[in-house]
């Protein structure tokens, strides 16, 4: 058999990476590099206060301008990016690590274990994210670690519920019955047959939620129950800018633009990944 035909038979020569994934990944990689190495490439790495430089607009020396205390906003944006991206990634990774296995077990095995997992999830789902986060933050106090704990606690339930419903819709298909008929074990059926056909929408949801988590952290910081100084995030910088945006709008423009573009980047990756998991869309 010619090599190209064989590759086609094996489904190899197809393009896994569509444009949305590429553009989204480039954007996110840019912001990750910006957050990690931004202080090395910027014109200044000095974050000291200088009242003579208070509220200076963007210039070559201070590309993002300066804040009320004369601190370089570029350096602050770089530092804020580290925290914002960390909160986004970690909270979703923990949510996926907890939510996916629990959703799969609940959906595939059903019965009392499904009831136990889903009623536990309902407790967290019954609270609106921000209000729930405010409540828990009020109980356990502000701070970066506590924000991560709160987002993971609230996030796994959405993932588990979504994945469970996908698993249930797939598990009664004839190809699952056929796999069982060929002697496949429960875990093998979940990983090999159910997950590839049902995890796409969950990953899309999770990737889009990285942006949401970054925004939610911004809201908490904006409301004063999130990060505590000297730790800053893009959301925290935005909250600081609110009182001065009439006189120094650049304080809002740069963190706002970074936040928006990052959320768009994750959304693009999410949509692209969802398409990549759907063979009908991928190999038309």
């Amino acid at each position, binding site marked *: 058999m010619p090599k190209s035909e064989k590759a086609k038979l*094996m489904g190899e020569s197809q393009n896994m990476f569509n444009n949305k994934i590429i553009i989204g990944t480039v954007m996110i990689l840019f912001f990750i590099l910006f957050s990690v190495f931004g202080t090395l490439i910027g014109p200044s790495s000095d974050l000291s206060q200088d009242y003579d430089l208070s509220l200076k607009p963007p210039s070559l020396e201070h590309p993002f301008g300066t804040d009320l205390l004369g601190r370089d906003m570029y350096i602050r944006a770089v530092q804020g990016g580290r925290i914002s991206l960390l909160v986004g990634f970690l909270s979703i990774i923990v949510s996926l690590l907890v939510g996916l296995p629990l959703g799969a077990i609940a959906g595939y095995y059903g019965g009392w274990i499904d009831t136990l997992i889903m009623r536990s999830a309902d407790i967290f789902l019954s609270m609106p994210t921000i209000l729930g986060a405010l409540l828990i933050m009020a109980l356990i106090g502000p701070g970066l670690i506590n924000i991560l704990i709160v987002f993971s606690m609230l996030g796994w339930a959405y993932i588990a519920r979504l994945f469970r419903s996908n698993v249930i819709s797939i598990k009664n298909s004839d190809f699952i019955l056929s796999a069982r*008929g060929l*002697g496949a074990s429960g875990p093998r059926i979940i990983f090999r047959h159910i997950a590839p056909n049902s995890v796409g929408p969950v990953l899309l949801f999770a990737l889009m939620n990285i942006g949401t988590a970054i925004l939610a952290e911004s809201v908490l910081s904006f409301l004063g129950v999130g990060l505590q100084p000297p730790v800053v995030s893009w959301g925290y910088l935005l909250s600081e800018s609110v009182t001065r945006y009439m006189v120094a709008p650049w304080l809002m423009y740069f963190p706002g633009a970074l936040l928006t573009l990052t959320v768009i980047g994750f959304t693009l990756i999410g949509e692209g990944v969802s398409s990549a998991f759907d*063979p009908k869309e991928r190999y038309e």
Partner: protein
Amino acid sequence: MSKPLLKVDDLSLSTKRGKEILKNVSLDLVEGGSLGLLGSSGSGKSTLALAIKGLTRNSFSMSGRIIFNGTELVRGKIKKEIGMIFQDVASSINPAFTVYDQLSDVISESKKVSKADARALAEEMLINFGIGSSNGSGSYPHQLSGGMKQRFLVAMGIATEPSLLIADEPSSSLDIFASTDVLKLIDEYRKSSGCALILISHDLSVLRAMVSDVAVMDEGRIKETGSLLEVIDHPKSDAAKLLVDSELTVERALELRLSRQDKQADKEVADVKSK
């Protein structure tokens, strides 16, 4: 005399709410034998097939015994010696993987050969079955035609080299050419391996071509068993009579056509008279 292979003994199945799906079903099949399960939709043919394969839902209550090769089958314990070709072509193949991957997985699991050997065997089998890229088609399930999908299901069904193959209406959704191809593949495997066959169908012409014995099912019961020719020529039960009568033979088709033409002629005469 051939050795007994399968014995279904007084098998009954009912749902949680007490609805009986199978009622006191008993049947026997010898090694290399062939049995057609004939019956209208909803008569319990597919449920019986799933019960023999060990895939009865856990929520169903079950009584009676299924003995395969001298061993009583336990629900949920799958016998790889029983192969099955499922009815619904569209939903019987995992859409996320190529047919090549799926078949080589089954071969590597059942024959305990290396992945490379399994892939080589799968490739050979797919080409023999006329599935693959030589006709310009891709290899994800949605890229295959209905006939190719059904041929792939046959390949999956026989990949484990079963000694009993259950085919649940393998040709019902296909055109006459594709249907003949599929039945030919099943027949060729039977001839080369000597495996027994349970063929579910409500199409007498398909059963005529493939099986020697038949069991007629209706409302979860076996109403009549016997050799196919005996049942077709002298049906005893109402269910069998109904199925035989409803077969569209050449004679019956001609009768229908003539009666239509008669009506048309009557109508034309009536029109002329009225004018």
